[in-house]
């Protein structure tokens, strides 16, 4: 069974927070929603888990017992120890006594928190807190795992570990939805949605999104801006030619995900 949003529209007063957004989350797959701050990622997930009622569109989600959700802000109780946090979640989802010990042990091992079992949640490092939060959301083996910016503000090593945890869940059959502000993480998903200002700029597999970049992208080592449709990339410039013809002195390159996101944003500008 596949979950997700179809043509969802959410208004907040006069402001349209989400407009015709479709997100599909399939079992054993990771759907990554990429976007900047205020793109509507959290709103999207709040609709998905049932915290927010959309104004239009349809939402498919499993029963509450089968959802694991980690909001962007929290995911654990700071004044409870790691073990107590696990106990609370096990109680909340009424895990049978025989299962909870095994499951908790498994989560502790997968999150690498064996040595921190009796430390307070609030005293863990940022990366450990996020790992615990994801681990807690996995404790009851949900059908749908919804993680809002699990890797934001986390060091690269912990980020890699978090992604291993997330991929492990998908490998076990869970349908996973993740938001991120880090464009390079989009490639981790089997399906990617580029969201900006409540609109879907592009969606599909990472390959499809890269293949779908319109026009031509090139690179140039110029002192000044080579064209209005260009942006800095390290020491050089990236240039986008919507019609395919790059200015002189600009070498065509294979666009990567960063390029795809910028091009999608440029292409969505009014009048283009």
């Amino acid at each position, binding site marked *: 069974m596949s979950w997700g949003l179809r043509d969802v529209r959410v208004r907040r007063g006069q402001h349209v927070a989400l407009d015709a957004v479709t997100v599909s989350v399939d079992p054993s797959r990771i759907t990554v929603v990429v976007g900047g701050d205020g793109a509507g990622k959290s709103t999207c997930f709040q609709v998905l888990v*049932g915290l927010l009622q959309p104004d239009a*569109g349809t939402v498919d989600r*499993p*029963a509450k017992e089968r959802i694991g959700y980690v909001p962007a802000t929290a995911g654990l109780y700071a004044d409870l120890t790691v073990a107590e946090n696990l106990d609370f979640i096990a109680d909340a*989802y009424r895990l049978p006594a025989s299962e909870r010990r095994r499951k908790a042990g498994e989560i502790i091992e997968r999150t690498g928190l064996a040595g921190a079992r009796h430390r307070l949640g609030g005293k863990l490092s940022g990366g450990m807190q996020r790992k615990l939060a994801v681990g807690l959301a996995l404790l009851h083996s949900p059908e749908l795992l919804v993680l809002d910016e699990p890797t934001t503000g986390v060091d690269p090593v912990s980020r890699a570990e978090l992604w291993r945890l997330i991929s492990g869940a998908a490998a076990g059959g869970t349908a996973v939805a993740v938001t991120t502000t880090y464009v390079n993480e989009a490639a981790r998903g089997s399906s990617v949605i580029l969201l900006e200002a409540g609109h879907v700029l592009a969606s599909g597999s990472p390959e499809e999104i890269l293949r779908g970049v319109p026009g031509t992208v090139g690179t140039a080592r110029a002192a000044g801006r080579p064209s209005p449709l260009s942006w800095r990339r390290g020491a050089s410039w990236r240039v986008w030619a919507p019609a395919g013809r790059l200015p002189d002195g600009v070498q065509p390159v294979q666009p990567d995900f960063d390029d795809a996101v910028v091009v999608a944003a440029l292409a969505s500008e009014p009048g283009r």
Partner: protein
Amino acid sequence: MVAKEFRELRRDRRTVAMMIVLPVVLLVVFGYAANFKVHDIPAVVVGPAARQAAPLLRAPTFHVTGVDPAAGEPAARARLRDGQAVVAVVTGGGRPLVLLDGTQLFSVETAEAALARLPAAAGPAAPRVRILYDPDLTTSWVMVPGLAGLILVFIGTLITSLGVVRERQSGTLEQLAVMPFRAWDVIAGKIAPYLIVAAVDLVLIVVIGMGVFHVPFAGNVGVFALGAALFLLVTLGMGILISTVSQNQGQAIQLAFMILLPQVLLSGLIFPVPSMAAGVRWISYVLPLTYFIEISRGVMLKAMPVSALWQPLGLLALLAVVVLGLAIVRFRRDLAPDTRATRPRARTAEPAPL
């Protein structure tokens, strides 16, 4: 720097309200409510010479609410116990006997002074005065039952609101809403611990009051417990209500403070309610502490039966239903914004009319 501070302040409306409203409230309260002088002390006169004695209890100090020549001392005592009168004059058989309700410290002092000034025409014999319930007019006897209520307000309102706001602030409330809890489970789960702690605290306060200050506990523990339970539900409701309109713990503390202060000043804990100006007195009558103090003093010091306390008990029950009901409705809205989501595999929204 100064301009920046003012700009920040202007955006923190609650603090501005507290800085401007609070001094005004304090002034009004102290001006109108803080009145130790008592007038219109309710009095009853019984015994064969009741009709002759009644006119001696003059207004504005006294307000004679009943004259009953056929009744005797037991009836007079019952009236005092049930709070229908503060002064009871028993005539007949030589010197008249004046009974005073010692739990009304200020009224008793005023009444004693007025009785001493009675003109010689009062009769050949000066009345005998007997103070009931708190014969030595010990302040702590009257204060401890009231303080018990104040401490319950503190725990119920402030600590509960902080507990709920902490959950909201850290974002875990959002997570609880997605977990397979019914809204009721969450509400009961959040309230129960505070209810238990407050109940333990209450027992502790009463026991310490009895042990250290020798405050009597003359009445029925069950009646006291009933009043305390109703009162606690109101205070917990206020705590939850505060939490639903506060984004962080600082705001919750501010609001709780604004609710606590009038209860300290206007509930009859310090200043007698009947001597407050009418414009301020009505506030007392919507404060739960006013009724709890009536119950706790009545039961502990005067052994008031439940039949005499039905009014404060009923009003507390009404307040509990209103305040707690409102709190639960608001809290539920936070927990279950999409009630249909509780259905398995809900296909939620239909297209809304645009």
